[in-house]
């Protein structure tokens, strides 16, 4: 009901304040950036971490989940980062460029900086930019994400990240993998800014490697897709571990632009993948897909706000969730259509499959519409595996476990196929199988 202020700070909150005091001097930034960081910490002091009384976090109570907050991770050495990457490569054989951020800081030594520069893509570390004249602008948020708890937490502690700039008209032959590596225990807080220039095309793969222990991973990805440009981002959030995985996408789309994204969650204990999509130019399109698998005591939250502020834009949101054990799946999606955003076409679908008696799904597909000439639709379903389908497969001699796997795969691949980035999503089927077999 009322977002009442927490009177007493939790252990994790106290840890965060302490973390800020000890690492303040090491965190880079101009005077203005430092002021933003301090304001962010004050906001956490006033409101606490996001909790269930905050409507946007109703189902994902980060405040209750975080029992403590680890210190920020130390800077990584190149050899250690390389070792982690060699051991844990998310895409194996796939041809791609690589940008490496280790323990929150850009690592040029392991990145294909020169090759990318040759293709017209420049990479710079966020740290230098934060210290510069326009540093504070790098930490701005769109209207729909103002005062969001995760972004606030990110602003307070951001260690670094990269600025990726694809020049006007470039079209890369290979996708670019932005991999964030943890070489030691400790929180990893990054902010990555990606700009795709006019008419340019970029495909981005976002992956995570290493183990941050109890330290939370908090990453903000801020994309600008200019007029006529194209950006596809595939985010893999995979693996066990107790660390909270907190991801934010902010996407700003120009005119005639196309943005696609797939958020793939399998396995972490607590994940929140939130996206704020903003249309600022006409005739653009956004397609947002989500595939979530959670088991055990996992909580997996896919949250999305699509802001249709201008006319003639289309958006498609399609989310699939498979739940097992005592896990909890959350989907919160909202399509906003501003008064003058006529001819908007928005279509949102969320479907959940519950494999166990104790799994829970919360769906909240919202529409907020102020324009009268639009087509907006949403749908939500939840249920268990269709007995008839299972029977059909078993009658044909397929053992029960395999039949279930096939049905889960079929269910999830609807979204993956529609995302239509086959070379990149090729390996996801085996990840689904691994997950089904391994928990």
């Amino acid at each position, binding site marked *: 009901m009322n977002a009442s202020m927490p009177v007493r700070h939790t252990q994790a909150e106290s840890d965060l304040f302490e973390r800020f005091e000890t690492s303040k001097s090491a965190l880079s930034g101009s005077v203005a950036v430092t002021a933003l960081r301090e304001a962010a910490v004050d906001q956490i002091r006033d409101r606490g971490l996001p909790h269930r009384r905050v409507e946007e976090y109703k189902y994902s109570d980060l405040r209750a989940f975080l029992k403590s907050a680890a210190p920020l991770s130390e800077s990584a050495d190149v050899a250690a980062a390389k070792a982690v990457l060699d051991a844990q490569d998310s895409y194996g054989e796939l041809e791609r460029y690589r940008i490496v951020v280790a323990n929150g800081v850009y690592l040029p030594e392991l990145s294909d900086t020169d090759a990318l520069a040759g293709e017209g893509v420049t990479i710079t570390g966020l740290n230098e930019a934060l210290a510069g004249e326009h540093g504070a602008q790098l930490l701005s948020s769109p209207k729909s994400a103002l005062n969001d708890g995760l972004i606030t937490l990110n602003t307070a502690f951001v260690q670094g990240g990269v600025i990726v700039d694809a020049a006007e008209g470039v079209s890369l032959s290979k996708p670019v993998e932005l991999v964030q590596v943890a070489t030691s225990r400790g929180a990893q807080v990054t902010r990555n800014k990606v700009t795709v220039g006019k008419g340019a095309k970029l495909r981005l793969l976002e992956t995570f490697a290493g183990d941050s222990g109890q330290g939370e991973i908090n990453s903000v990805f801020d994309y600008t897709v200019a007029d006529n440009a194209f950006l596809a981002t595939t985010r893999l959030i995979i693996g066990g571990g107790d660390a909270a995985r907190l991801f934010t996408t902010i996407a700003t789309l120009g005119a005639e632009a196309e943005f696609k994204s797939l958020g793939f969650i399998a396995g972490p204990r607590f994940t929140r993948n939130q996206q704020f999509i903003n249309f600022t130019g006409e005739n653009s399109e956004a397609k947002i897909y989500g595939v979530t698998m959670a088991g055990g005591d996992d909580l997996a939250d896919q949250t999305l706000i699509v802001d249709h502020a201008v006319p003639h834009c289309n958006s498609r949101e399609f989310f699939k969730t498979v739940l097992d054990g005592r896990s909890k799946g959350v989907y919160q999606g909202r399509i906003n259509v501003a008064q003058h955003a006529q001819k908007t076409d928005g279509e949102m679908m969320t479907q959940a499959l519950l494999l166990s008696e104790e799994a829970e799904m919360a769906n909240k*597909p919202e529409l907020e519409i102020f324009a009268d000439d639009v087509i907006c639709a*949403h749908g939500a379903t939840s249920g268990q595996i269709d007995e008839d389908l299972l029977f059909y497969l078993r009658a044909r001699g397929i053992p029960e476990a395999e039949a279930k796997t096939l049905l889960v795969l079929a269910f999830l691949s609807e979204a993956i196929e529609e995302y239509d980035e086959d070379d990149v999503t090729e390996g996801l089927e085996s990840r689904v199988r691994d997950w089904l077999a391994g928990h």
Partner: protein
Amino acid sequence: MPAVQETIDQVKAIDVDQYKYGFVTDIESEKGAKGLSEETIRFLSAKKNEPEWMTQWRLDALRRFKQMDEPNWARVSYPKIDFDDLYYWAAPKSVEGPKSLDEVDPELLATYEKLGIPLAEQEILAGVEPKNRVAVDAVFDSVSVVTTFKEELKKAGVIFCSISEAVREYPDLVKKYLGSVVPVTDNYYATLNSAVFSDGSFVYIPEGVRCPMELSTYFRINEQNTGQFERTLIIAEKGSYVSYLEGCTAPQRDENQLHAAVVELVALDDAEIKYSTVQNWFPGDKDGKGGIYNFVTKRGDCRGKNSKISWTQVETGSAITWKYPSCILRGDNSRGEFYSIAVSNGYQQIDSGTKMIHLGKNTSSRVISKGISAGKSENTYRGLISAHRRASNARNFTQCDSLLIGQECGAHTVPYIESKNASAQFEHEATTSKISDDQMFYCLQRGLSEEEAVALIVNGFVKDVIQQLPMEFAVEAQKLISISLEGSVG
């Protein structure tokens, strides 16, 4: 697609400046002192001749109310209500205790006549029984002025009277059920209502009885600066059936008036309650001045197995509506239904919807909601569908469509769908384009064009909702019946 002309015309016909029930009845009335205090409650309770336990119940609610904060989650905005600047008791002077029809002030009878609610009992003439007889409980400001057909209902064992009378005459039933569906501290306005409720209806249908006629309550707010705090309690014993209708209007006044009602329904094994509302409170004038704040808690408890509760509402009035008729599906195999058409115009704000809470096994629910916003109004559907751990095989189907007419209004959908049971099957959809492919295919195959097919299916679907309304409401519903759904958005 924008709305079609026909729809625009129909909505215009019920625009806020077309409000027909805005007259004031000039009748001498008596008011309690202004303000919300223990004295007010003692005064009110004494006025109604209530037993001490009832007074204590109210005082307890007041104490709790003082500790609560006004909810702010709904998508409505209004200046803060000063609860100390309201009258909690207003009654026509001529009403003192329950009366027979002959003794009712002719002025009051004329008022109800004018509202289209004849209170005179239609006599059985020459053995010809009039069709569709309805027993009416007429509530004027804070009191029930008359309840018709009481004697005849009594013969069937049905108790139909004002809640004030029930508190005095049937204290055991009231004690047992009052507050058992909507607890005193359920929410801010329910707590306020528990402290100061004035009048409303009490219905008790004994085991196995099918109520011989429709029951109805007509609420009228007449006085200035008053709040109306209706309290209705309906109990359907095992195997019984009742259909209940509710209507409401208020005069056209410049200031806002508060209507904070609580309605509780209890359906025991195999019982069925059908509750229909045409809510037509004064919506404010075309500049958004005046109008009723309708802050209502309505909840039905399907307590017994195989029980059924169905809510049907046509909402066209009120400056602000804040109302979520809900069903608690506690009994195994119980069923809840919610059918709603909500039209907002002028500066009206509607935040309405339903909650279907599945607790028992094999429970099912169906939600169909149509929101139409025009003018500068805001229309929000807010609903919760939840299945608890033990609610195996729960089923829900929800469809909510909304339509915008004009550039300055808003339509919003905020559904919460929470499933804690794997065998619960929930479906939620919100658009005309979601018509089932099978139905489309069937129609197309028979030579209909796609447009004709959609029209046919959609019309069939609207009729579905309208048909849930009892005959008596047909007139009001008629105005909305042919509203097409072209241009619907989710």
